[in-house]
């Protein structure tokens, strides 16, 4: 599967590493931040050192940057930046302009998440997902809580064993 991930924060980096280790072709896009505080930290610091995919520094709502990331041959695009609006724009570009079959956007505002889901964009809100999981755990709802937690803890164990990518200093 060819996957483009826009936004390489903790979630993006985690997922990119997971898919890459399973043999999928992954490219990761993250914006070149202009803030010095951000530039000190590495752009792709959340990727594991074994990551074999492409890293592209650029704006994930820019058609040219997305083309560079191989969107024309992508099976899926995941928009996981910190900005709901940027995620929604990247997801719509992927779906409507490049015809990517599977498009998922992280949208933390539940109202926006619902509106765009009705429009045919697959959205999920960290707020409702995390809240639902915690609720299920408190209720000892095995079906939801335990299965997901077991999977998550297994992935976490794998990740901890692996060193993170050495930080790339901004030039």
């Amino acid at each position, binding site marked *: 599967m060819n996957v483009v991930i826009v936004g390489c924060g903790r979630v993006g980096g985690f997922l990119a590493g997971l898919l890459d280790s399973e043999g999928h072709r992954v490219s990761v896009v993250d914006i070149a931040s202009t803030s010095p505080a951000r530039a000190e930290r590495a752009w792709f610091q959340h990727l594991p050192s074994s990551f074999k995919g492409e890293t592209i520094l650029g704006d994930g709502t820019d058609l040219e940057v997305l083309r560079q990331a191989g969107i024309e041959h992508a099976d899926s695009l995941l928009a996981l930046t910190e900005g709901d609006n940027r995620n929604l724009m990247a997801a719509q570009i992927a779906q409507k302009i490049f015809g990517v079959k599977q498009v998922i956007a992280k949208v933390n505002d539940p*109202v*926006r998440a619902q509106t765009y889901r009705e429009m045919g964009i697959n959205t999920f809100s960290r707020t409702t997902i995390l809240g639902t999981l915690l609720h299920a755990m408190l209720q000892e709802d095995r079906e939801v809580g335990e299965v997901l937690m077991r999977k998550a803890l297994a992935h976490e164990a794998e990740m901890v064993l692996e060193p993170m990518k050495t930080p790339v200093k901004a030039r």
Partner: protein
Amino acid sequence: MYFVVAGAGEVGFHLSQALLEAGHEVTIIEADRRRANFVQEKLGSIVMNAPADEGRAQMEAGCSRADALIAVTGDDAKNLVICQLAKLRCHTPRVIARVNNPKNEIVFKTLGIDETISSTRVLMNVIEQELPSGGFMPLMSLAGSANELIEAEIAIGTPPAGKNVGSLRLPSGALVGGIIRKGKLLHADDDTKLEVGDRVMVFSPTAAESEVRKALFG
């Protein structure tokens, strides 16, 4: 008319002021508290301190009874979402987005926002109008349709020079609306002969812009 303006930066502030002066009713939505207070002091209590990209704020601002919403923040993705939310949730009949990166004009159109304003594009048009070689200028997009108005100057050695308007190989849907010759506006018939230096006004589907250029410049 009733307008909701999203974003009270320089553009939003002056736009709202102009709309008020023209006798319209305006509500401004601005997320930054200090900026909202500042604009409130200048323009009166028409400012809502809230994020315009949230459905609730749009509802409160009365987007469902507004004649138009204009999104003029400095962030293109935000302007896109503000306009889409207003259209989908509040059924605002007319939404207009400011586009900071001119490349996003076509992206917005594809994603259902027909009316965009790009200050970069406007400035480029002004500059091109001043340049002797700026022979081809898309002047404006026509509200509520995927068409635009183009001005082009007939240059020496191009296919239309000395030919009739009817012989132009314009794409389907495009038509010549008029000709400016030596400062005078002429009616354009199929058998009007085009002269070098004529400025031709072409109405054309936006998507066919490059075909119009080809028809006029070869």
